[in-house]
Each structure stands twice: as structure tokens, then as C-alpha cells.
């Protein structure tokens, strides 16, 4: 059965918390909802940012996601 949006969001958060590297690309979350389209995963990951559960990490040329609990100092590089 297809996962609900909430289930996918939970899986994304768990991945963001447990992944070895704190910074993840949106693509790294695709497996959190194997049946969902890529754009759906992107929208759910972005919802988690709006809910302040994840934050964006930007290098200027790319943007990654970091679990809010793993956010280090602002000058993380």
C-alpha cells in the first residue's frame, strides 16, 4: 500500500537524523517514499522546513537539508 504523506515525512526526518552525514540532498530522500514521484518528495521535505523540523544548508551553488536537531553553529561549513 502506498505510504501516506505523514509516513513519508516521518521517514525523511528519521533519515535526516540518523544519516552519517548531516547534510543531505533532496535526492537522498527519494527512497523514503519509494512509490512517490520525485517532486512529491521535494514538496514534503520542504514542508518539514516550513514546520522548522529541518533547515536548509546552502553552499551558494547547491542546497542541502539538515535535521533541525543536528544543526550546528551558523558557521557550519
Amino acid at each position, binding site marked *: 500500500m502506498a505510504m501516506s504523506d505523514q509516513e513519508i515525512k516521518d521517514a525523511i526526518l528519521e533519515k535526516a537524523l540518523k544519516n552519517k552525514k548531516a547534510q543531505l*540532498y533532496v535526492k537522498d530522500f527519494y527512497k523514503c517514499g519509494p512509490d512517490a514521484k520525485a517532486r512529491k518528495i521535494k514538496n514534503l521535505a520542504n514542508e518539514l522546513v516550513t514546520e522548522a523540523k529541518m533547515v536548509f544548508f546552502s553552499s551558494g551553488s547547491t542546497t542541502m537539508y539538515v535535521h533541525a536537531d543536528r*544543526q550546528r553553529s551558523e558557521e557550519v561549513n
Partner: protein
Amino acid sequence: MAKHDTPLLDELESGPWPSFVTDIKRQAEVNPDCWDILGQLELSFKDRITHWKHGGIVGVFGYGGGIVGRYSDVPKLFPGVEHFHTVRVNQPASKYYSTENLRALMKLWDKHGSGMTNMHGSTGDIILLGCRTEALEPFFWDLTHDLKQDLGGSGSNLRTPANCLGESRCEWSCYDTEEACHHLTMHYQDEIHRPAFPYKFKFKFSGCPNDCVAALARSDFAVIGNWRDDIQMDQAEVKAYVDGTTIPNGGAHRDGDWGTFDIQKEVIDLCPTECMWMEGDELKIDNSECTRCMHCINVMPKALRPGKEKGASISIGAKAPILDGAQFATLIIPFIKVTKDDEFESVIDVIEEVWDWWMTVGKNRERVGETIMRVGLPTFIKVMGLDPIPQMVKEPRSNPYVFWSEEEVPGGFERDVDAFRKKHAA
């Protein structure tokens, strides 16, 4: 009074050209923090390394683009640039401003930032240089609420779309580039402000193949005006060019002594597909062979015009050299109608087809042109449901950038990539 001695930078003011050093000094009289830009840059010149660190968790709430973090790695020496984030503001289509708007924008930037700007960035945005982290949210609030303007794109987002002047000023425009650019900017707000892709993605809109925004070299998705029927010709005007009554090139090169206009030498022999000839004093074109280079039209604008059935060609996959070197875009859709009548649905359908494929198949930090190169053009064409045509492969992608190797530069240069990476880890 200058806060730091900057002998190396001062040399940059001695040449014949306007210097950014003079500009920064002028701004430093207003905002003393700007002395530290000069101080840090002088140190960089001495150390032969940048002292900026970039990136980080910096931005406005809910946005994953529009602000690029910049920090000094020597903040104790230069506290004025300890935080010096770059803000990208979405420029209006064709960069038409009222002076009232420009003044309001600058007032806002003087209030919240350094007052330094870069008009415009290569993507087209209004670039505001130098903001402290705590000033970002207040700036953003004022920008969006008082000026009703918004941030542009950065990171792995859709970047701020850009267009040529199009129908607002240019008789060659084959579609309304401003309307297309504005409509798609509004349609894809989410993609501009939040990351969506393996890497950056750029749209650019040129009204004709003269391609004044250089979409073909600079955008992942280039929409370049084109026509499907024949070049419109006025034989009486052709004669007027030939007999010297009308000056060629709209008078653009009249300062030089080029002799009398020679249609054979200056137009027919330069047609890249050799599809033009004279029959008596009539100019003939085999339009089925015309590759839409615009040369003949540019030289004889009164005699020749783009056809009447207008639209655009879509080329995909240009990029600057990060991986694999620079490449031009590849023609994918030879002709498509681009019109507000269908809310630009025809173009949107192509865009989303490309995105759906690239978001799944593209690797992290891989531009769509690199993905196409990796899987091969035939696969991409199949995914897009298209039949191959010679124009897709006719001109091998050429490198529009020039690089120098160490041997070619007097005195050479040394660069320890490993040490650099260590200091500036991604």
C-alpha cells in the same frame, strides 16, 4: 580616512578604467564597515587566497535560495565583514525599473546592508552584497511588504529566469519574452525559492536567434524565438541596399571604411548553410536550408524580416565548466508556439517532462546537460518522445570559455587544490 593601507588595491585605481576600489572607498565614507572589504581583499592579494568562507545555514525562514552565506575567515582583523551575506533580488522582466523603485531599493539596502551592490549578477538578479545574519529577516520583511519584491534563486533551485527586451523594444522578437519570463517566474515560485533539483536549473528567453541573453550558452533551458515559414523579403529594399541608397547593418559599422556594400561578399558568401543566391537583381533564399542564423536579416533589416509564423526553438543543457567543461545547449524542440493564450502550457509541458526525468536520473550536483551527456542524447530524445533530427547533432558542442594553463601565464601560478579544499570544505 582609510582604515587600512591598501597599496596593491590602490594600483587598480591607476588604470584608465573605472575601478571598483574607488567605488568601495566612496561607500566606506558612508558605511565604515566597507573599509574592511578593502582590508580583507588587500590581505587576499598578499596571501594569494580568498578569505571568504561561503555557505552555511543562512537564509530567511522557509526559503532555500536567494541568500548566499559569506563569512570572513579573519573576522578579528576585519569585523565589518564578519558576516557579509549576498542577497539576490529577482529583477523585473527585461530589467525595466522606475527610478522610484531603484531609490526605494537602495534606501532599504543602506538601512539593512552594506549599501554595496552588483547590478546585475550573471543570472540577472539584483545582487546586494553584504548583510549580517540578524539583518536578513528584517530586510526580507521590508522588501516583500513595502516594495512587493521577492528574492531570486540560488542553490539547487530554479534560478531567476531572465529574458531579452523582446517585443517591448525589438522588432525581431518572435514571441513575448517578457510575458513568458514573468509568467514562468510566477508559476514556479516554489521551485525558485526552495531546492527541487539535483543541481541548479536556468531558464532564459531570447526573442530571436540573435539570442541577446546568451540563452544558448548559459541556460539549461533556452527558449529562443524562431519562425517556421519563409524569411519575409522586400526585393525593392534589397535593391536599395545593393545600390547604396540604404546603409547596411542599420548603420552600425558606418565609422569604418568598408567600401561600397557588396551583397555577395557580405551576405551571400557568409550564409552558413549557403542557401542564398542572386538571380539577376533578385535575392533568393532556399528557406528549407536556412539555419536561422539571423546574419542576412541583421545586415539588411529593411529588406529581410523573420517569417510570419512565429514561435520558438527549445535547446537544452548549456552550462559553465564545473564538471566536464563548458557546453552549449543542444536543440531539442525545433519549433513550438509560445503564447499566453494557453498560459504557456506548451512550454510548461516540455519543462516538466525534462524535470521529471532529470530529478530521477540526474546525480547530485549534475546539470541536466551533464546527465544528457552521461546517458547519451539518443536516450534523452527517447525519454522526451521525440524523433532525432540532424540539427540536434549538426554542430558539436563547442567550448565558449578560454582557460590558461600555468605555462601560458608570465610568472606562472601555484595552487594547492588539496590545501584549498581543506580550508574551504563543501
